């Protein structure tokens, strides 16, 4: 099955050449030159992954990302020019699942797209896990609290499901990057930290004093057993 990607980027040359490269990698690529156009295309049909440049005319990437998050759980990879800036964290906070830095390598980008598209499918038959009033059902891909569905993105869900599968054990950031994002050595641990933060806001009663996803200093994260 061909993965489909929506590439929202205003720089026409980059858009053209990256589309060429991704198509050569076997992906189906749709192009959008602005945030508005991208959102319109996303409304027409579903895509496996959205590739979103942060610098856009009109509505900027952060805004577009928040808008995408409001209407869908499609994984978003943001494209940024600066790996070290607050842009990365701000983009992740806005709801992006991953990021790449310009200039990027087409092969690596397509590998990330595939990893995100793959892991957004059902993560296999795992037992349900109940933490307090929270119920995690990996088979159904939903988390409920008191019978009501907690709205998680697919990455947030995957993160929680991995922690639940290893309940009681500490998972390092590197392990989580590998399990959730499918990276070995190339990940950025900020991905994990920001997603944990987002997850806590949604599942914890008091995100400042987490009881479900707890930090083990210098080690990683854990779902208490």
């Amino acid at each position: 099955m061909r993965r489909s990607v929506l590439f929202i980027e205003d720089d026409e040359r980059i858009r053209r050449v990256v589309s060429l490269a991704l198509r050569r990698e076997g992906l189906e690529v749709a192009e959008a030159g602005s945030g508005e156009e991208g959102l319109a295309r996303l409304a027409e049909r579903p895509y496996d992954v959205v590739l979103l440049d942060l610098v856009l005319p009109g509505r900027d990437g952060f805004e577009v990302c928040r808008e995408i998050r409001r209407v869908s759980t499609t994984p978003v990879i943001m494209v940024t020019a600066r790996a070290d800036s607050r842009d990365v964290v701000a983009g992740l906070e806005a709801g992006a699942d991953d990021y790449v830095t310009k200039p990027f390598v087409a092969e690596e980008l397509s590998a990330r797209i595939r990893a995100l598209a793959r892991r957004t499918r059902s993560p296999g038959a795992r037992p349900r896990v109940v933490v307090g009033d929270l119920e995690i059902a990996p088979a159904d891909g939903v988390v409920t609290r008191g019978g009501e569905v907690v709205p998680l993105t697919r990455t947030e869900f995957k993160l929680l499901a991995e922690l639940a599968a290893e309940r009681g054990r500490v998972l390092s950031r590197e392990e989580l990057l590998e399990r959730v994002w499918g990276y070995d050595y190339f990940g950025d641990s900020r991905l994990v930290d920001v997603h944990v933060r987002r997850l806590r806001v949604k599942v914890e009663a008091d995100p400042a004093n987490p009881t479900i996803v707890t930090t083990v200093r210098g080690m990683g994260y854990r779902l208490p057993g």
Partner: protein
Amino acid sequence: MSLTAVPAAPSADGPAVEGPRRRRAPRTPSLRGRATLALTAVAVALTVALAVGVWVAATQYLLYTRQNVTLAQAVANAAQVQRGLSAEGLPPAELLSQLPRETGSVSLLADDGEWSTTSLRIGREELPEALRGAVAGGQPSRQRIAVDGEPYLAVGVPLAGLQDAYFEVFPLHELDDTFRVLGVVLTSSVLAVAPLSAAVGWWVTRPALRPLERISAAAAAIAGGDLGARIDPRGDPSLVPIAASFNATAAALEQRVRADARFASDVSHELRSPLTTMTTAMSLVGSCADALPPDGREALELLRSEVRDFEQLVDDLLEISRADAGSTDLALEDVRPAALVREALARRTAAGGGTVEVTVRADASDVVVRADKRRLERVLRNLIDNADTHGGGLTAVTVERSPDHACIVVDDSGPGVPEAERGTVFERFARGSGSTRSRTPGSGLGLALVSRHVQLMGGSVVVTDASGGGARFVVRLPVAGGTDGGA
């Protein structure tokens, strides 16, 4: 475009800045010393003038008073002697003994050439000829004399109508004693004023010169790279105008440096979009390289390595200029160097760089440092790249620990870094002495970035000799000792 126009940031990279900064020995005394000296000189001069004035006035006055008192007594006694001689006809010796006299004074009477005296020590011979002559001529006179080395004042009064004269000799040694005491007091006060005024001057000039110290401290801070250093004029009104102009100058300088750095940052940032197109287009062309003729393939290979270096340069330039522009995105967290080194070496292996295993000393396997993980990864990558591209290949990476530090030691098999170049090797675009201006692979910013990042994380980096003969880079980072629970 000249990308070498990196902002001349005042903070140098690397341990070179830690070298002894020669300070010129002050040949002339310090301002404070000179101020104190001047104050002391003025104080001493004033005291001396005052002491001399007091001495002259006091001695004159005391002498004048003494003379008046003695004259009055002598005249009164002379009148009594005259009455006694003319009316009562008493013998002169008895007459003299009845006279009221102050202690130590001696009365003498010359009665028709017959001398009577109340003292065994002082008689006619002790009175000078001039005095006796003047009194005999009917003129009351006085004269200072010395008897057995002691000072006296002799006063002579002619007795009216008689060929007689009354003399009285008053001791002056008490007055001399007074003068001596006064002299000692005045001299010692002059002597005491010198050190005292020096001490007071030293003490008083301190607050007066404190503004100067604050200005020089701020200037030194700016020279040392802290562009944000300013003078806070609060608590010292005299500092306000100079602080205002100093701060304005410093702010202008800071803005200028930041603007330069931002320009370099913007330039490299702008270059990233075309670079993305170039690298992606090149990899597309590369995937159909088999269809190219041999010379086309070689040209593509050259283009590829050039674009790769260009990419690295833009990347490093962006990072270092952001640091110059005062980027404050330092994200300190607990990091295990051993794990990070292992990952960095695995990446190198994955990229086809061969296999080098990290050696972790027994006590260093669990050591945790407070570091910015992204920056530390960059430091490791740059050191490994440096070893591979300039040092003849990476030979060993070791993680050690000392009580307060974790050390990451990177060895290569190259010729090493000569002693003389160890300070400059961390400077921007520093090239080894062997290759003056010839181009070598890499951006020329890798080690500068290493030094910059390590310093930012509170550590240090030095280069020494590896045991095998190559260069050894040692990164020292403070061990995490905090108790905060953040992750």
